[in-house]
């Protein structure tokens, strides 16, 4: 790296109130060689990497199996749906959930990785909430599992903040002009879950049946919770 660039780095770092150190200067150096490690065939590369890490004693393959199994089978949007259904039938729980998400989620046994500080935001006839992470892919793992590809993709991340109504139309949801749209960009270690509106006509449904109405998309804010279509499979 040339000295001019390093000089620019030092002044930028100083201006942002961060101590300029050699460590920080390395950040810019890293651009130079990061692209040498392009995975040509991910399957082979990952196999080779895993076998290296196992042989070096850095990872336990059975622990990797367990992590995959957890996110494929145990953790997913059913967790969040359970929380939403509880909030719909229990006003006191809903009040606790909106006031202190972390404590109320813990009551139902949810917390852990990326779920330490979860805020629940409520949709009403006048307010619609939408969750995004414009900088990477932050998402409430314990409640929704791992995010779908569209949530992590450039079209959603770029447009959710500048054109939320257009994004929602693409998801088939047209909001009235007098609705407040609130977009939550997950820029720190807080995570967001949308509490959708309870559908009209669901008054006599059980908590379990209500939970089945709550989709991942409704809890991200790109859809509403709805009753099953007539004639559709329950």
């Amino acid at each position, binding site marked *: 790296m040339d000295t001019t660039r390093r000089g620019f*780095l030092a002044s*930028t770092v100083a201006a*942002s109130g*961060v*101590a300029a150190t050699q*460590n*920080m200067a390395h*950040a810019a150096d890293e*651009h130079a060689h*990061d*692209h040498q*490690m*392009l*995975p040509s065939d*991910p*399957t082979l*590369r*990952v196999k080779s990497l*895993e*076998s*290296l*890490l196992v*042989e*070096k*004693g*850095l*990872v336990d393959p059975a*622990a*990797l199996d*367990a*992590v*995959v199994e957890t*996110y494929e089978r145990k953790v997913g949007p059913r967790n969040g749906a359970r929380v939403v259904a509880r909030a719909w039938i229990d006003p006191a729980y809903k009040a606790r959930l909106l006031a202190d998400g972390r404590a109320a989620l813990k009551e139902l046994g949810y917390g*852990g*990785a990326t779920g*330490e*500080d979860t805020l629940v935001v409520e949709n009403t006839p006048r307010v619609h909430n939408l969750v995004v992470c*414009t*900088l*990477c892919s932050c998402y409430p793992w314990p409640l929704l*599992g*791992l995010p*779908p*590809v*569209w949530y992590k*993709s*450039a*079209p959603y991340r*770029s447009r*959710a*903040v*500048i054109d939320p109504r257009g994004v929602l139309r693409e*998801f088939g949801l047209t909001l009235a002009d007098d609705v*407040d749209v*609130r*977009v939550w960009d997950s*820029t*720190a*270690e*807080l995570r967001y879950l949308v509490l959708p509106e309870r559908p009209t006509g669901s008054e006599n449904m059980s908590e379990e049946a209500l939970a089945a109405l709550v989709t991942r998309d409704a809890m991200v804010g790109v859809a509403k919770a709805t009753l099953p279509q007539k004639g559709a499979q329950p």
Partner: protein
Amino acid sequence: MNGVHDMGGEQGMGPIQYEKNEPVFHAPWEGRVYAINRTLGAWRKWNLDASRHGVELLPPADYFRMSYYERWLTRLINISIKTGLVTREEVESGKPAPGAAKATPPITVANVEAAAMIRASARRPDAVAPRFAVGQKVRARNMNPIGHTRLPRYARAKSGVIERDHGVFLFPDTNAHFLGEKPQHVYSVRFSARELWGEAAKPQDSVYLDLFDDYLESA
């Protein structure tokens, strides 16, 4: 850094590609990459912010060409080499260097539930005073740090209102570069859509960002 990862407000990215009944992982290797990321972190050679910065450092063309888990794989290899967990030669050959000692993994099938499923929280004790109060008008600083930051470009130099004080968290801008945690308050700041995007936006719409004390000045 002003990288392509900071894409809030960019245009021309196309329509959202929605996949019905999407699987958690689209191929077994994606699951392995995810799991290796989650467990290798237990060696504490890096932290979450350094890891995020590893993706931001990918050259822009690679960032867009790669799938999500290809990015994770590439940054995992890069950061593992940089921090000395493995060498480039070992990654290329897939074999430990001759005579390399065998370590014992900190996360095994016996403790994976407890250890890997709980990520170290970024929250810190509330011993730091907040610089701003709920209801106060603030402006996001016009700053362009070359390292990691969680202040998106689209909010810089824009004014908003503190809606909530989330408490104290470690500061990603320093933590990502192993320059200390610099704990400080994080606030939910409401920006009106018109302040961010101009008159075409609906007057009542807004975007909320979680911003660190160091990103803000009073307005």
